[in-house]
């Protein structure tokens, strides 16, 4: 029944992960019982609006945060239990591409140094081999070899994101977490970066956890998609299932909100949703979505709908879903 149960052989598995932050204003319920898995070589898309907890999920996976409760498994092992050496070994297999191409590179290090860093930390190769590897990485992400001698500020946003991808690729990881990796980029550059990520997946069978607020991009990149709302997964299904038959009203609203570039076929639906997402400081009782859902019933205000399988590999957390 649980989404996690099916994925016991998965590369990455989150099991009922809860993450709360204590702040001056109260406790932020960033993640509230999130379970999902990613198979080897697979891309899972994680989509949701700001504050839904998708970036927190990324940081938990990267072991930058410790979960309040619940477990993150990588390759079957609980990452919290690992000893120092195992942790370091895992870091080599698990890499991340960050959102902001301007803050994700150390401004005081030459690009070559930034790319060599992972190889030094994990003692891969002698100096000469490392330099060869750096040259290869630069070429692989479409940059000239002389980029190694330059500083990040000499590059455009798109080029910096290529450098960030090269860094993530340096150790040939099994999983790359892409946290809004293209949302800071201009449209004409975005396509270049998405294509690069697609190529790398094809060539190295790397798995992605692809996080974005843009459903159209998530759909394009992912094999399966998880939709998050206020710290919970509300729907998780294969890309085609989700697109053909979205079962959660929030998923439908997200789809309806994608602006359409064809003036000939403007969307007909009225406003997809009213208001803003509630604050994760005090999520509404019952179903998290009840305050904005057009179909809210008495039951939704009292009882929290569990994430249940409604079809093969299609999980939905809604009382009304059939």
């Amino acid at each position: 029944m649980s989404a996690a149960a099916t994925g016991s052989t998965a590369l990455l598995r989150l099991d009922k992960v809860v993450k709360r932050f204590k702040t001056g204003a109260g406790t932020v319920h960033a993640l509230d019982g999130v379970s999902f898995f990613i198979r080897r070589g697979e891309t899972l898309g994680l989509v949701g609006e700001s504050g839904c907890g998708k970036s927190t999920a990324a940081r938990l996976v990267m072991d930058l945060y410790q979960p309040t409760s619940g477990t993150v498994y990588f390759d079957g092992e609980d990452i919290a239990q690992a000893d120092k050496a195992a942790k370091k070994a895992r870091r080599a297999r698990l890499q991340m591409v960050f959102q902001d191409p301007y803050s994700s590179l150390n401004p005081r290090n030459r690009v070559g140094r930034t790319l060599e860093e992972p190889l030094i930390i994990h003692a891969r190769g002698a100096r000469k081999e490392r330099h060869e590897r750096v040259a290869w990485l630069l070429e692989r992400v479409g940059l000239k070899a002389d980029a190694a001698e330059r500083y990040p500020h000499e590059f455009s946003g798109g080029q910096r994101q290529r450098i960030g991808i090269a860094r993530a690729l340096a150790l040939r990881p099994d999983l790359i977490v892409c946290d809004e990796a293209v949302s800071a980029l201009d449209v004409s550059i975005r396509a270049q970066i998405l294509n690069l990520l697609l190529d790398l997946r094809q060539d190295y069978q790397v798995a992605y956890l692809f996080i974005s607020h843009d459903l159209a991009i998530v759909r394009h990149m992912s094999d399966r998609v998880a939709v998050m709302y206020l710290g919970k997964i509300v729907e998780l299904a294969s890309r085609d299932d989700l697109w053909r038959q979205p079962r959660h009203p929030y998923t439908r609203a997200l789809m309806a909100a994608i602006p359409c570039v064809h003036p000939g076929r403007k969307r007909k639906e009225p406003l997809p949703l009213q208001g803003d997402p509630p604050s994760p400081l005090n999520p509404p009782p019952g179903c998290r979505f009840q305050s904005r859902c057009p179909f809210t019933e008495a039951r939704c205000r009292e009882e929290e709908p569990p994430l249940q399988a409604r079809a093969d590999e299609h999980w939905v957390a809604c009382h009304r879903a059939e």
Partner: protein
Amino acid sequence: MGEFLAVRGLRTWFHTRGGVARAVDDVSLDVRAGGTLALVGESGSGKSVTACSILRLINEPGRIEAGEIRFKGVDLLKLDDRGIRHIRGNRVAMIFQEPLSAFNPVQTVGAQIVEAIRLHRCVSRREAYARVVDLLEQVGIPSPAERAREFPHRLSGGMRQRAMIALALACEPELLIADEPTTALDVTTQAQILRLLKTLQTAKGMGLLLITHDLGVVAEIADRAAVMYAGRIVEEGPVSDLFTRPSHPYTEGLLASVAIDDLPPGARLPEIPGMVPSLLAMPKGCAFADRCPRASRDAGCFADSPAFAPVAKEHRVACFQARLAPVYPLRVEKNDAASDAAPALLPPADENVMAVA
């Protein structure tokens, strides 16, 4: 009806230590009375500088070097400081991308709108306050009287953007300049704000100049669009025409790279190779030539800057090769995308928001 806003030959240059950056170079555009012009471009294309130039909000090292900005026949560039202050916020208002930084954090939202009203209108504080509540209601803020007493940070992102729209509308401007009004918002909120802008514009008969990088937003609310690239307008025309028959290769490329749902998932996306040239090192000839699939030496793409010329009714383009057929023909489908979009299950919007006029 005469011309409303007419920008002619605008040049706004930035004199940096690295040289002169021609952020806006010979830009001409028109916003018609009651019409919406979208100024589309990527970061650094000069679209925001153009917008700020209209209200003369350009700071050192930037300078407006040449051009005319005629607003209802008056050249805004020739006005004295007093004159332009009378225009700003009063007859021409502006809204920005980040609503939180547009408000003073230590004053309530209501007090700031009162201030804006009293800057241009001789009304008592009490009258102004009544108007504030009315405005907040118009932009769809629930319980407006209470929200007016809130501090900006207490409002959510969408509410803040609504409050900023209310602030901009305070003096019933004739022209509204919206600089990326929805970029900082979540997708579901974005749709609400766009709709609000459109409704208010129709109700009040305002001209709207919308600055955006998002072609989806353009398709949604603009009737005409101008595409900017590296400080120049490369193509301009009615949205329906521009989006279905783009003539400039850059416009085509942009449209193709966002039409992501037309492709099979996982397929390579059409991309525009290369990147925008630095404003400090502009190539000779057409600025797009280096990235252009159609650029040719024979046509003069690498030698001269192409002039702006009509290709269809009200549709002009600055390209030597504009006559060629589009590289990426976009299909206009009759079935209204219903096949792949979500079923229309949601109830109609709360329409009292729109009851403005």
